């Protein structure tokens, strides 16, 4: 009998469907990996199984019991342990205390008011054992917040294990880890095989293929495929989901764009290092965007693409490195000053202002920051995106996903930037809309707009972009023009797909 059975699980957030009719089974003792491109709903699924979210429809059965409405702390006591995507520990407590708390929680009522905990020596001895299990025995007295990022992820697993779970939910356990740290995590997970069932969300395909007994692929909230690693790897649907349509209606002309030599770099990033709190995300990024070109940032999720873009714009202050825009180092400047120089962002998730109308979203920030002779104005933007004309008076939150995407692009264009940055501008859109947007980007590029683009549909990008940078684990691992990328499909397999 399966340990965990998820049946017909659906989760809606208002108008957004994050998961739709998902079925999943995890057997006792097996390592089951959950993979999928950005926005697929993997963490939502983990949160639903853990009890942090309530499903809109569907059932969750654990060890024979229906736990769909059971609160998270009760599920923990039933034997579901979890780690979080962003490290979530008791920061000011030591390693020992963190583990001891988990041991305490699992062993009897918290409503004891008289007997001092430190006299229950067995709790601390058990905690010590778990510390040893995850390789932190020599760090027992260190505050969790003072640990390195990799050690914190290890402690996360330790805290989850200390609850003696039957099922362990690991949400991106190796995120932000170096190669060696990843190896250690892989060894740990392997050592648990048979003892504890593990449901694992991961982007690092090396890790996945070394530990998983079975793999389920989630795409846009639905289960696309499920089976052994071999089956998944050779499944053409899976490849298409990761890399984009091989065929399909093309609005964009097939082309081999060639950039004339000797163009100056509009943007140059040198040695960029960025941290989120204690965890280092970027380990020295170098890239250049020549004026008038279309440059892409490629790579799987969690590799640092969005962080790079946010660092360029000053939304996340870089710890080290230079960001040179039109000859000026803007690293450390506040975002509005950088934007005023002529960089506009079309962010991940669109982030249009929900309490402004379409018209207001467009005209509120309008400016001619690049000093063009015939700048973008409202009429011209509406000509580019005719669909928006009918929606001018509607509030931002009333638009569909595709319309919001167009609005976000229009909003950025209205500032007439030197550099237009788009982060996952086609995510979650129907194929026809994606084509429309790429067609529009091609038009912009032909008009001389410099574009920095994050997207996953490499096939298309080869026709659109001049130059590509592939990121992995916060570093640039490959760069080159479209011909080079087109010529070497093993690169795609290695860095971009399953």
């Amino acid at each position, binding site marked *: 009998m399966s340990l965990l059975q998820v049946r017909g699980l659906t989760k809606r957030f208002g108008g957004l469907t994050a998961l739709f009719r998902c079925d999943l089974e995890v057997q006792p003792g097996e390592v089951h990996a959950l993979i999928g491109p950005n926005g697929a709903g993997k963490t939502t699924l983990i949160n639903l199984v853990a009890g942090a979210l309530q499903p809109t429809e569907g059932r969750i059965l654990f060890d024979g019991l229906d736990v769909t409405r059971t609160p998270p702390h009760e599920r*923990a006591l039933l034997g579901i342990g979890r780690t979080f995507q962003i490290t979530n520990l008791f920061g000011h407590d030591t390693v020992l205390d963190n583990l001891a*708390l988990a041991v*305490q*929680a699992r062993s009897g009522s918290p*409503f004891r008011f*008289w007997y001092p*905990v430190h006299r229950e020596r067995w709790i601390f001895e058990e905690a010590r054992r778990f510390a040893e299990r995850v390789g932190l025995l020599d760090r027992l007295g260190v505050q969790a917040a003072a640990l390195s990022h990799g050690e914190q992820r290890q402690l996360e697993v330790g805290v989850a294990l200390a609850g003696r779970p039957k099922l362990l939910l690991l949400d991106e356990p190796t995120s932000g880890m170096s190669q060696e740290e990843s190896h250690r995590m892989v060894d740990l997970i392997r050592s648990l095989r048979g003892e504890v069932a593990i449901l694992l969300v991961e982007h690092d395909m090396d890790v996945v293929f070394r530990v998983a007994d079975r793999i389920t692929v989630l795409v846009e909230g639905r289960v696309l495929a499920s089976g052994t690693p071999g089956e998944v790897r050779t499944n053409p649907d899976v490849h298409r989901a990761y890399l984009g349509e091989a065929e399909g209606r093309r609005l964009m002309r097939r082309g081999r764009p060639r950039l004339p030599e000797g163009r100056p770099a509009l943007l140059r990033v040198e040695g960029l290092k960025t941290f989120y709190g204690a965890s280092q995300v970027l380990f020295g990024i170098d890239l250049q965007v020549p004026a008038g070109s279309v440059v892409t940032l490629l790579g799987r999720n969690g590799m640092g693409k969005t962080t790079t873009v946010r660092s360029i714009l000053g939304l996340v202050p870089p710890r080290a490195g230079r960001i040179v825009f039109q000859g000026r180092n803007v690293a450390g400047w506040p975002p509005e000053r950088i934007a005023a120089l002529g960089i506009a962002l079309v962010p991940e998730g669109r982030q249009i202002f929900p309490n402004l109308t379409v018209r207001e979203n467009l005209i509120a920030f309008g400016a001619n920051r690049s000093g063009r002779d015939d700048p973008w104005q409202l009429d011209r933007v509406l000509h580019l995106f005719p669909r928006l004309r009918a929606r001018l008076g509607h509030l931002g939150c009333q638009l569909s996903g595709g319309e919001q995407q167009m609005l976000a692009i229009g909003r950025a264009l209205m500032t007439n930037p030197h550099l237009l940055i788009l982060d996952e501008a086609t995510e979650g859109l129907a194929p026809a809309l994606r084509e429309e947007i790429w067609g529009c980007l091609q038009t912009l590029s032909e008009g001389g707009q410099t574009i920095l683009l994050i997207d996953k549909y490499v096939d298309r990008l080869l026709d659109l972009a001049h130059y590509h940078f592939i990121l992995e684990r916060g570093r640039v691992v490959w760069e080159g023009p479209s011909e080079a990328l087109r010529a070497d499909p093993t690169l795609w397999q290695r860095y971009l797909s399953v």
Partner: protein
Amino acid sequence: MASTRRTAIAPDFARRPSAVPEAMPTLRHRTGLLLLLAGFILFPLVAQTWRLEFYLGLLTRALILALAASGLNLALGYGGLLSFGHATYFGLGAYTVAVLAREGVRSAWVVWPVGVLLVALVALGVGSVSLRTRGLSFIMITLAFAQMFYYGVISFKQYGGEDGLRALRTDFGVSLGDVGVYYLSLACLVLCLALLWRIVHARFGRALRATRDNESRAAAVGFPVYSIRLAAFVLSGAITGLAGVLMVHHTQYASPGMLGWPQSGHLMLMVILGGVGNFWGGVLGAFAMVALEEVFHSVTIHWQMGVGLVLLATVLLAPRGIAGILEGRPR
């Protein structure tokens, strides 16, 4: 992706090593405490000879406020619950005594348990509703309840309305003089501190701090967060209510101001002055506040300005309070 919005996180003061020592106080600590206690016990006897009667009243007030602030510290400091309505429990404790005295019930053996129990029940009711909310909503709802009780109490004209109510001290079989109230306050404070020490070091205290430091992680390891917080809230309210009972014995007067939200703010400021989340925070803060008020009072009639400025400086510059200064810089 990191969110720019502030969610309900453990406040700034919690960014320091755990202030609760794992072991019981060392021998040196214990000796120091015993000496201090002896000093407090002997003070009234000495006060007569050295003509310090005025300070007897002041110390009594400090002891009672120390109890109230320590009660609040359990919810605020250890629980991370920003209750802006704790004055309700303080005031209700006081008013129970005063109202019962007005109705002719003066036996301490009846009035005290009734007072504390009533306050605990109110805290249970308010807590069970308020704790279902978070962050700013929680502050607002506790504030709303505080206002409701305030207006409720002052609407009873026969119990003084806006003017407050005179109260006779309850009867323990012997009548209580000022010195009696002093010793009673000291005894209650010492007893409650001992109780709090046990609570804080037991499983409950650890679990409570876990819910404060990281709510989602606490739930994920199996702690019933809502129940733990509710229990802390009720205990905290009861202790503060007891302080209210003592206060009305001290002043022999229950005033509606004891219930209002500025009184809650006053208690919270005491706690932060002393050191939020530190065991002695309530005591240190109450004594420091009373001393501060006295010092400024003797210097100028505009003493509230001095106090306000000191408190502002504390909040901005020394958020860990006096206890933080005494502990030294964090490791």
